[in-house]
């Protein structure tokens, strides 16, 4: 990967981290309603996967969607405006945290019914295959989604029809508060691909370059042959959502994974092996912090949507 791209990848991961920290802050102040599912700890997955996509490739994900939205090119100010329910948000304050989307960025959303976006992804890939396009659909979901019928019907269909879809399982090892071992008959999610004769790979989801390289390779297969299941083993530092008291895991487990922080690992690699200076990376961190501060100010200054706009786009006419 060229130097410029490595640097912007680092910036992006820091940006996501800062955005999530600020979101947590705003949530604790009661300024974000509903539920808030943070991406902290999983940044290397979203950033690594999306860095490997081409602009024509479609991205669809679950409700833990802030990081993926940023990686797809959504501006932090638009994300914050949506979290605060403002008119300047990506869906004018209708969708909120779990439904970020901007089809102009080829980012088809944040979906909050676990697993339900997998058949949608199959259909998106079907449309591209039907039209003879070589675009791929990248569908991201958690380990929890692999226990629901949608996963199995979608994977089966994608294989039967040889659809250009990359299934990306972000295995953060917990479906809400239930560990993958307690919820899934196999805790190595990639094994589930074998039921459908689908190729698969498991990568270290805390290493952004590993995720990037694996995604590139997988996408080549997807464009030529059909579906592929990529499992990225990762860990979320925070609870399932902001309301999660986290009684289901020990502090030292969290601490162990924090040592493998995806941003820390990447920073070390950039410094030790890839010729970056502390100064350059510190400047990127500062840039990210400033962007987040400005984004929050923008969102706070934005107006609420008018109530009558809730009837806009309910139907085409």
């Amino acid at each position, binding site marked *: 990967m060229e130097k410029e791209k490595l640097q912007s990848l680092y910036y992006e991961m820091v940006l996501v981290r800062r955005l999530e920290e600020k979101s947590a802050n705003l949530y604790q102040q009661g300024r974000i309603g509903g539920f808030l599912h943070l991406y902290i700890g999983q940044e290397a997955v979203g950033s690594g996967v999306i860095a490997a996509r081409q602009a024509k490739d*479609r991205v669809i994900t679950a409700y833990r969607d802030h990081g993926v939205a940023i990686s797809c090119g959504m501006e932090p100010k638009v994300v914050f405006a949506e979290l605060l329910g403002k008119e300047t948000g*990506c*869906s*004018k304050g*209708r*969708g909120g945290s779990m*439904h970020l*989307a*901007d*089809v*102009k960025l080829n980012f*088809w*959303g944040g*979906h909050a*019914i676990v697993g*339900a976006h*997998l*058949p*949608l*992804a*199959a*259909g*998106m*890939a*079907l*449309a*591209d295959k*039907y039209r003879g396009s070589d675009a791929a659909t990248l569908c991201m979901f958690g380990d929890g989604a692999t226990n629901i*019928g*949608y996963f199995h*019907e*979608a994977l*089966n*269909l994608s294989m*039967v*029809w040889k659809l250009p879809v990359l299934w990306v399982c972000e295995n953060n090892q917990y479906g809400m508060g239930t560990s993958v071992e307690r919820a899934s008959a196999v805790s190595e999610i990639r094994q589930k691909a074998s039921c459908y004769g689908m190729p698969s790979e498991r990568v270290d989801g805390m290493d952004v370059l590993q995720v990037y390289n694996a995604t590139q390779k997988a996408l080549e297969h997807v464009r030529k042959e059909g579906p592929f299941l990529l499992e990225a083993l990762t860990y979320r530092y925070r609870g399932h959502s902001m309301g999660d008291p986290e009684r289901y895991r020990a502090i030292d487990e969290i601490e162990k994974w924090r040592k493998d922080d995806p941003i820390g690992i990447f920073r070390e690699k950039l410094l030790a092996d890839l010729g970056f200076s502390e100064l350059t990376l510190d400047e990127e961190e500062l840039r990210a912090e400033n962007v987040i501060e400005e984004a929050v100010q923008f969102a706070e200054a934005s107006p609420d949507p008018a109530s009558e706009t809730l009837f*806009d*786009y*309910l*139907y*085409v006419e």
Partner: protein
Amino acid sequence: MREMYFVEAINEAMIEEMRRDPAVFILGEDIRYGHGGGIFGATKGMLEEFGEERVIDTPLSELAISGSAAGAAYMGMRPIAEIMFADFMSICHDLIVNGASKFRWASDGKAGCPVVYRAAFGAGVGATLHHSQSPEAWLMNAPGLTIVMPSTPYDAKGLLKSAIRYDDPVIFLEHKLLYRRLKGEVPEEEYLIPIRKADVKRAGTDVTVGATGAMVHQALEAAKILEEREGLSLEVVDPRTLLPLDEDTILDSVRKTGRVVIVHEAPVTGGFGAEVAAVIAEKAIEYLNGPILRVGAPWCSVPANRNLERDFYLPTAEKIIQAVKDVIRYGGEL
């Protein structure tokens, strides 16, 4: 004018639309070879004309069918998903009410979901509790959704063509009893029937009978009998699009007659008729000369026993006649 069966009108509508627009394709269970084009023959001849790329057999996998159809529609395709029996709509429910119907709104109008879910519904063929239901009320409470239920071959063809061209998701419910038992006039030349427009199937002055699907024919039969026997004049209104409802046509009729009976095949409780009754009560109660009566299935599931299904479960012309007489009796002499 030429006549054709209800299912032939459905078939012709799809073929014409697939010839017109390459973005239209159909997917469903056994639609290529099963019984020569779907178990009811609705897709007959389509494989031969359009090939396997546009006439797509699916696994028995309703989550995959309903979801992949919606996903392809997000991309601007115009899929027709055949859900073999409308009872299976329950499996598709999440992808319809949480997915397809919300997408335009959630994307702030930047994209839509122009998909048609066609399904055979209704009782009367002894298919019992999982192959006979009328699912419209299950789907009524979903903003963004459109539900169409034609009662004649003419309406079926014109409405299905409009549904395929419609930019939002449409549930298109076809009564399986009508498929090969009802023939009707269908012109050779192309025509469309607008979505969201009710149709007065028989003009009258004494009582409005609102009826849907196969029940339109029971209502027309009741109207004929009551005219002959009692000299009563019934107006039969077919909403055709159940959601969103063409309130004006229904209210105009009610304001004229002052008496209403609503007929549908699903159970009365929580049914489509409850919504219509509420609209009339809210907007035209001062015109009413009696209670709004509903005729529908009793509060039980569809039985296997053919006699019970026909005489006890299903609404009939006789039951409609009784309801009409009750409304008139309550309101005094005409």
